[in-house]
């Protein structure tokens, strides 16, 4: 393991440690558990939560309005019949990806630095998938019939059409949601037991006790836990690739200029990781500050996340270049015209904002100093979040708006409802993160404890 080879972080200033200072399990349990178990909360928490609660109300109002009036209330039309419901859906799914990558893939690759960020990354995944899952339903003209996508036996002989990528999509998202939930809950079990043991009120003891499923921390439990956790990780890892590949096939399957492209699956997966890590960084930076866990979620974590962002971001940038290149190289006038209108047409400002946010700003991360400067990293991560939303919107909208028949060309203009639903879902997502931080340990107690233990042993061994 990389850490054991270079045992002491302090000796190598160029590479900050994944954990600062000496910690032991009881101390870590105490600190992380206290975030959840302490009684009064700072005023700032409540103020921020109130703001988010207002956004939750906006979300609920917008959804109610949408369902009662109809999807025409947001900015779609013929020919651009898909809009922000699809682009936001792809964006949220993308954000969900970082969690699985951190939890499952890095677990399998034995990257111990993931330990302190995986829990909230997983939670973020779940909440993002929850948000993402709502969008395709809200997208429907008759959302109350969304279950017709399920292969349910029924009397009206209705069966999904398996040729449609939307059915694959539905299955992929549902699988992803279930596996993410299981994986997250599995990982929570030992920590729930810690909370149960540390809780002082009867109610909390009962709640956490039930959720802990009788975890007692015996060696037997740990052995079972390890094997099943790794098994779930092995199941979840391919999903990182498959979910967004299938989402991208919704587009690639269609014969719309700008949709019909074989590069979409890898391009979308890289984009998903890119935006996912950007969101992890966006949340982790304020979180570590607010709860004073800078010694557990360290600059090293942020640095590593930034490096993954560079890798993913460069693949995304390659995707942009390749899209433009193949639009030209194909000789297809339809593709060329669509690309041209993307660059100079009505959505050009979005396109160029997307290029700046996703491809240009990213380059700053090549400098170590930028990667380790939390304000700079935060701003860059925010820019990438914005840029990735724009990317999805530009992809969704620019193809159909410049389709095959010029007489049918038209643009889409957004209404308040597009914004109401998007910012409402953002608020709801963050409100869920707040609740999660309040109710469950945001940092994995046992894994961080394990990490601390290994580090201590390693240090003692070398001395």
């Amino acid at each position: 393991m990389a850490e054991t080879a270079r045992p002491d972080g302090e000796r190598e200033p160029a590479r900050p440690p994944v954990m600062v200072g000496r910690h032991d399990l009881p101390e870590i349990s105490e600190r992380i558990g206290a975030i959840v178990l302490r009684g009064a909360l700072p005023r700032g928490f409540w103020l921020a939560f109130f703001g988010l609660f207002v956004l939750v109300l906006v979300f609920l109002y917008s959804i109610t309005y949408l369902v009662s009036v109809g999807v025409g209330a947001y900015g779609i039309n013929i020919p651009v019949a898909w809009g922000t419901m699809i682009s936001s859906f792809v964006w949220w799914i993308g954000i969900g990806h970082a969690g699985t990558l951190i939890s499952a893939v890095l677990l399998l690759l034995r990257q111990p630095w993931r330990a302190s960020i995986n829990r909230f990354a997983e939670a973020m995944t779940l909440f993002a998938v929850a948000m993402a899952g709502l969008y395709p339903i809200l997208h429907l003209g008759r959302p109350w019939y969304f279950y017709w996508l399920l292969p349910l036996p029924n009397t009206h002989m209705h069966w999904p059409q398996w040729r449609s990528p939307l059915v694959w999509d539905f299955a992929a998202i549902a699988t992803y949601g279930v596996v993410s939930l299981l994986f997250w809950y599995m990982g929570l079990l030992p920590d729930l037991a810690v909370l149960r043991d540390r809780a002082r009120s009867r109610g909390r003891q009962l709640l956490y006790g039930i959720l802990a499923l009788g975890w007692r921390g015996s060696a037997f439990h740990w052995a079972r836990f390890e094997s099943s956790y790794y098994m779930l990780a092995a199941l979840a890892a391919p999903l990182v690739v498959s979910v967004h590949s299938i989402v991208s096939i919704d587009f690639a399957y269609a014969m719309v200029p700008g949709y019909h492209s074989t590069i979409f699956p890898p391009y979308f997966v890289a984009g998903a990781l890119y935006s996912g890590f950007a969101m992890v960084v966006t949340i982790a930076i304020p979180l570590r500050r607010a709860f004073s866990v800078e010694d557990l979620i360290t600059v090293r974590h942020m640095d590593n996340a930034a490096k993954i962002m560079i890798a993913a971001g460069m693949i995304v940038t390659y995707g942009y270049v390749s899209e433009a290149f193949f639009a030209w190289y194909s000789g297809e006038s339809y593709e060329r015209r669509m690309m041209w209108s993307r660059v100079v047409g009505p959505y050009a400002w979005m396109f160029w904002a997307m290029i700046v946010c996703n491809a240009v700003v990213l380059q700053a991360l090549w400098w170590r100093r930028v990667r380790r400067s939390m304000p700079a990293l935060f701003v860059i991560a925010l820019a990438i979040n914005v840029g990735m939303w724009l990317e999805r919107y530009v992809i969704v909208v620019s193809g159909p708006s410049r389709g095959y028949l010029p007489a049918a060309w038209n643009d889409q203009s957004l209404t308040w409802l597009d914004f109401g639903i998007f910012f409402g879902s953002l608020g709801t997502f963050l409100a869920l993160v707040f609740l999660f931080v309040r109710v469950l340990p945001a940092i994995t107690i046992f894994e961080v404890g394990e990490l601390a233990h290994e580090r201590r042993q390693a240090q003692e061994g070398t001395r």
Partner: protein
Amino acid sequence: MSATADRSARRAALAALGQAGRDGRPWRSLDELDADTAARAVETAFPALADRAGATLDRRTLLKLMGASLAMAGLTACGEAEQIVPYVRQPENVVPGRPRFFATTLPSDGYGIGALVESHEGRPTKVEGNPDHPASRGATDAVMQAAVLALFDPERSRTPLHQGRPAGYAAFLAAVADLRRQRAAGTRRGLALIVEPTTSPTAKAQIAGLRQALPGLRVFVHDPLGTSAPGAALEAASGRALVPVPRLERASTLLSLDDDVLGEGPGRLAHARAFAAGRRVRRPGDAMNRLYAVESTPTITGAAADHRKAVPPDGVAAVARGLLALVDGGAAPDGLPVAPDWLAVLADDLRQAGDRALAMAGPHQTPAVHAAALALNARLGATGRTVAYIAPPDALEADGELADFCAAAEAGAFDAAFVLDTNPVHTAPADLDVPAALAAVDLVVHSGLHVDETARHADWHVPAAHPLESWSDLRAYDGTASPVQPLIRPLFDGRTQHEILAALAGDFESGPRALVRATWADRDEPAWQAALKAGVLPDTAAAAVAPPAARLPDVGGRPAPAAGGGLTLRFRADPFLRDGRNANSAWLQELPQPLTKLVWGNAALLSPATAARLGVDNGQMIAIAEGGRRIEAPVWTTPGQPDETVTLTLGHGRSHAGAVAALAAGYDAFRLRRTAAPWMARGAEVTPLGQTGRLITTQHHQAMEDRDVVRHATLAAFRDDPEVMHAGEPPPPDESLYPEWEYPHQAWGMAIDQTACIGCMACVAACQSENTIATVGPQESARGHEMHWLRIDRYYAGEPDDPLTLFQPVPCMHCEKAPCEPVCPVNATVHTHDGLNAQVYNRCIGTRYCSQNCPYKVRRFNFLDYQPFDPGEAGPQQAMRNPDVSVRSRGVMEKCTYCVQRISAARIDAKIDEREIADGAVVTACQQACPTQAITFGDLNDPQAAVVAEKDSPLDYALLAHLNTRPRTTYLGRLRNPNPRLAETGEGDGGHG
């Protein structure tokens, strides 16, 4: 009303005024508030009456009305049913669920066009053309299609009004009787009758009789649409009132001198059909006529022309005279608005064609143009061959026009005026103060379908019967008379013009049927019944007369510029709203204008060069001032518009047309029109206002972007290379992952001839009527939410000042490998056994993936709840909907079905008779309406089918064939027949765009 009651009403009005001030409800006058008070008073005293005066029709009334119509259907539309009784015995020939068709005639600017109206259990639901009628020949136009919507318009006038208050028709008759008594006593001044030009023999006989019976009667003709203009112009040009009856099918070289012969006028449908018949080229050897158009504003005739020149409205006369000089072998004067070479070639071509040439003058052009056309036809030998002249079928012995009425009325000449089925307060030229003239008359009686602007200035308003509720008769453009018979008993107790004229003549008893029958008393009952059945009174066409020689005034060369410069105004009636009489029709408001594709409003058309000079762009407001009057209008730059000419359309901007018209934005061009210059005016000042107005268009891109969308070629290129439409086309890929479909029975398909299509929009309106397609209103149209299943794309090619205008009707292609089918997750769009691409509304959950993946973008989505089907909300329009078509709820996709309900009906009939479905048994709504027969539909499995023959033509191509969608709707490339001697300027190199 007693004085006390009057005072209390006034008090109530003042109280209401205070109330209106408080709740911010806008009001215009005390009278309006007073009317509200009156309505409330009526509500208290006579609830039943108030119910009928209300704005909406409740279910009970609707059921009553439907019951009435059912009873009427049982009595073969005799309109004399006194009681509503349910069927005790089922009437003969009435099978519930099976529509019946009645022949009738619909008015079009005073002339008649024959129609067959579909009736479901007594409810008229759909208008088709009458193949036996010379003006229809089976075709309809958009306005005729919208007749059923106008019939069931919930805002129609529902009760006679006296001083704005509901009154009985009996009270009106009493007032007429009173008037007659006073006149008999000789104590009265004159009586004025204001009517629009009409061809109705019954109305004309009644008016002639009235003139005899009532010596003080003076008849004034108000002609806002210029129906009588051609007759008047020819009278000025030759000394004899005549109208030309062109026979386009006999002509090989046609010239339009500002005549929109395909789009306007009472014979437009017949002319369009004849014109297209002369261009039906399928093989290289087929003959094709050639149309030259010299026009002062872009029209669909100019779009169909092989050569088109845009000249200012006042330059047409000079061109016509120059041409005449050239045909005579002389020389054209200098300084004409068109190139002399071009004119010389045209003159040669006309001379060569000889008696197969045809010159047509625009109805609204000056007598000089009519004189030139008359002379041209005479010189070429065309008179009597390609054109006949007849006495104007709308000729009416009258005492003057509206202006004469106004002058006399203001001088106090009349104590009573009857304004029948016309709305002069809106449609009068701006220099006439019609309200003041009417105010100077003691008793003003108005009849009309709506309580319109004129009704508000009348003492009595009588609801008119809609043509589908009326007995009448009308003449076609060639003089052929045809009966108008009702499809339904008057919904709102409307009265025909004939009844009011009869009452004026002292006949208070005769029903409209008897009045009309009396006109045709020379026909015995079997002949009359046969005429009612056929929809035509045989042997009534006017006899051709030899026209006198044309008097040719000297018009000089280029018209002198107007003093002080300025732009030239060209007025046109809106193609669908006409003078505004159809303004409350949502179908017609939302039907894209043929060339501009604008909906829910009108624009001032400018040429691109003039717009650039003025520094204005589409949608920007300009002020147009002429003759001391000023209007503001948004600009629409239109390729092919002559420079320094502004085209203004009449019919928009009405103040009291109804709730639908109130949604539309538009300016009222009547406010700029003068009696002396109804169709063109010079020296208008145009100033940009720097604001932006609301213009809504359904097509945002006008060029084909070098794509193979509308393939076009010249006839010469087609003769050189029959495969010219396929030149440079890659072979379509025909591999598919999925197995081929098999069609053991029928495989439906459609072919659309783009040479024949003139872009008139009749098919779109017919589709809307047949398939109960919702209208969405201006806001939704502006957002790209319009619902038309069939659209006509209009592309421009070539130079903006001399464009090639191409039309392409785009219904669903019913692709063999339909991209919409595999993407639907719930199997809502599926392939049928007979090749249709069917949309199953009940299954659709609205993912809109099918629309995303449709390269033709023909799918339409119910974004909002556009069409209430709940009986409580739907209003009387519910009765108009086609019962054979499924309803669609919010959130589902819909699209062209190839009129699957008609296919099913034909299949059921064939199965009952145990035979195959014959070719031609299934006619789609668009095909049936099309005046040029551009659309052919049939079974591709039947080698004898007409559609197979069309598709066998080398002109046939599939739109976007390289996508391997294999459309069942294919197109015949557009052929043009330009004169080889005229250097083609960029427009036709034989290649396709």
